[in-house]
């Protein structure tokens, strides 16, 4: 830069507070509109999808639809086994995935020392969360259905879904545990509490809303999983309710998949109605997560 140059690099400040553009400059506005479009586009697609499913399936959205068994007559077919199957699957999955996932997160956050080994594990947990779900299905088929002889049962399905959820549950739980400030932990230690007492009475209660939110959101994802369940051989036509964890089963997404792949258009209406039910369930799950988070946030702030 030429020092002798009298030219200023920065234009002299103007004393006028009002500019021709008003509040914001033009590029600022353009950027804002682009961002708004980026938000509206997926939102619009989502609304169209839901509206489409709703109008297509409206005529079959009756109480009978929820409480009937599948049938070869589209107008008489219902989703009861699929609904019950999905519910059982979710409960079993939660029972398996929550203790293991939260336990693993607690170990990594509270006990593990920093070493190559732990950072190797940490990286791979994040990688596992990105593995396609059909891979988990293949693993479940070989490990649970065949090697452990669980058969094509609810238990095998839940175990497979648990594998799929574990990375997400672990990561969400670790995130929640990290929100507990170190100073709070130190306050516990300084009061003569050991690690377990600190975790049980302070760290877990404080991070519980975050952990629960993560668990609910990952369960909401699992309830829509189709590929791994088809891979392990969940049935597509079930005319009974599961009576034990070893019972064969079907689930909502599988029922929908089955109906959609039929040539008769009447079954497509059933599929649309099933999609609306599935979306409603997911909405309830996500709503619960939001409610939990806001409720506890108010209590802690």
């Amino acid at each position: 830069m030429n020092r002798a140059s009298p030219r200023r690099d920065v234009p002299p400040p103007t004393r006028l507070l009002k500019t021709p553009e008003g509040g914001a400059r033009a590029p600022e506005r353009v950027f804002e509109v682009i961002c708004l479009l980026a938000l509206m586009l997926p939102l619009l697609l989502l609304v169209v999808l839901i509206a489409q499913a709703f109008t297509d399936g409206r005529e079959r959205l009756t109480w009978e639809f929820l409480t009937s068994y599948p049938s070869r007559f589209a107008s008489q077919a219902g989703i009861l086994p699929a609904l019950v199957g999905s519910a059982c699957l979710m409960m079993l999955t939660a029972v398996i995935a929550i203790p293991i996932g939260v336990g693993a997160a607690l170990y990594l956050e509270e006990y593990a020392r920093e070493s190559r080994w732990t950072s190797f594990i940490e990286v791979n947990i994040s990688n596992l969360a990105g593995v396609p779900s059909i891979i988990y299905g293949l693993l479940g088929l070989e490990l649970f259905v065949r090697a452990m002889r669980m058969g094509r049962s609810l238990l095998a399905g839940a175990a497979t879904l648990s594998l799929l959820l574990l990375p997400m549950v672990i990561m969400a739980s670790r995130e929640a545990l990290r929100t507990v400030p170190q100073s709070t932990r130190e306050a516990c230690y300084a009061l003569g509490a050991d690690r377990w007492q600190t975790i049980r009475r302070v760290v877990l209660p404080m991070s519980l809303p975050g952990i629960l939110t993560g668990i609910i959101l990952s369960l909401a994802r699992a309830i829509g999983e189709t590929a791994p369940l088809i891979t392990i051989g969940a049935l597509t036509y079930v005319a009974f309710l599961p009576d034990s964890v070893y019972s064969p089963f079907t689930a909502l997404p599988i029922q929908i998949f089955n109906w959609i792949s039929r040539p008769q258009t009447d079954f497509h209406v059933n599929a649309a109605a099933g999609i609306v039910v599935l979306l409603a369930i997911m909405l309830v799950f996500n709503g619960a997560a939001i409610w939990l988070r806001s409720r506890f946030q108010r209590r802690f702030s």
Partner: protein
Amino acid sequence: MTRVDRQRAESEAGSSDALASPKMRVEDLRAWFGRSEVLRGITMPVAERRSTAIIGPSGCGKSTFIRCLNRMHEVVRGARTSGRVLLDGEDIYEDGVNPVRLRQLVGMVFQKPNPFPMMSIRENVLAGLRLQGIRPKNRDDLVERALRQAALWDEVKDVLDRSGSSLSGGQQQRLCIARALALEPEVLLMDEPCSALDPIATAKIEDLIHELRKQYTVVIVTHNMQQASRVADYTAFLYLGELVEFGRTDRIFTSPSDPRTEAYITGRFG
């Protein structure tokens, strides 16, 4: 600390009653974070039922020093120590000493008030016991006694069920003091307890320390020299991880023997 200084400190210790049988005795204490040595061999006594101030510029190891007195230093990853810290003649770093039990005897108050956010004021005071799974019978008496000792009772006696984090910063800090006192410790460590507080709240905590030192052995870290001169019977000046000077507070502030101490207390650095 030179040999002459150490002899002087020793002779001072010998001549003074309170230091004849100190509550704690630190011997050649060294502490590290990873590879960096933050305490370079500190030897000093902590007088019983007196207050001892640790002063020095930022980064001199004051906080690390006080955290070594109840083994809170080792809670941090990569932190370690060597040397001896005697509590009533027993080395707290000896094998077999349970740091959890030690911390029940040597309580601590931190720089930032840290009441438990999900607990009420009452629960916060009882937290030390509840954490250990103890359910005391005379809970109300215990809460009142601890809060009175912390000079907080009159302000909170009608709102004991409110959240601890609803209090002001100064009140929260006194709640933390009450929480530490409820365990009836023998030594109370305070790591810059007033640094996050306004002057009025600071004055209240200082008054409180005046009361507490009659009953407890108090060690307080402060970067505020006026505060040290107001609340401490003994003062230790730390600089770059070394103990430069230790002695009675009035002596340290009126006739420091080390030029670095003099430079620091007259405000020439730090």
